[in-house]
């Protein structure tokens, strides 16, 4: 591919996971990416082709790392509330997956492939995934349920 180096690609993608996971795809400008990733605009385009190219790289990394880690928490924790509470307080942050499901999966088939991969992975760990996703969304919006705080 003849990719330029001079920056840590893995680290830049990691930072993009955080940014897209907080601000969404549409809400993250190239200016945001350039200032948070420590990558020049030219290198960003040369390496990833487009903002969407970087987004797909970030989503793939997110599924392989964060979603895989969340699946482990799900598998290791019995109660659904306790599992969601653990993820909400100790991570991994699933912000990118949650936003991707709503914002990009319905309009971008390549994103849908990744979110389906993520859901399959989580469902393997947890049969009551849909309920867990609902709780994750609510927790993201209003914080962890009070009955679990300080657990």
């Amino acid at each position, binding site marked *: 591919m*003849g990719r330029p180096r001079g920056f840590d690609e893995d680290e830049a993608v990691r930072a993009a996971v955080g940014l897209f996971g907080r601000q969404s795809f549409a809400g993250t*400008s*190239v*200016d945001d990416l*350039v200032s948070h990733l420590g990558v020049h*605009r*030219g290198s960003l*385009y*040369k390496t*990833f*082709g*487009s*903002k*969407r*190219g970087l987004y797909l790289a970030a989503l793939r990394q997110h599924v392989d790392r964060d979603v895989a880690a969340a699946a482990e928490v799900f598998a290791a924790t019995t109660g659904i509330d306790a599992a969601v509470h653990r993820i909400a307080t100790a991570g991994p942050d699933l912000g990118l997956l949650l936003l991707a499901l709503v914002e990009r999966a319905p309009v971008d088939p390549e994103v849908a492939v990744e979110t389906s991969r993520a859901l399959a992975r989580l469902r393997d760990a947890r049969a009551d995934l849909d309920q867990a996703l609902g709780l994750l969304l609510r927790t993201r919006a209003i914080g962890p349920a009070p009955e679990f705080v300080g657990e």
Partner: protein
Amino acid sequence: MAHVRIEGGDLIVEIEGLNKVWALKSRITVPLTNVRGATVDPGIMGEPKGVRSPGTHMPGVIVAGTFHSGGERIFWDVRDARKAIVIQLEDEQYARLVLEVDDPHAAVDLIEHAL
């Protein structure tokens, strides 16, 4: 202002209006296999443009023509930064095209979905 369309496996960019004169190029054809992606990027107007080859640069007003920056050739045709898109190429004369289009989101979707 530029118009972009996809035709038979090629991306075709047509420059219209006065910019056409300043940019000294009215049509750019690139096989889709050499297109890496497209992005809505209003902020790119704030970047250093590099050294100008034939074309015109009236700072703050219009950027049109071929620029050399960091060993790359970049084609610019932008007057209104809010409508700027960036098309990244490979194995082409230009490393990327920075264009003003009527509907940036539609143009970017058209290109990204064709890849």
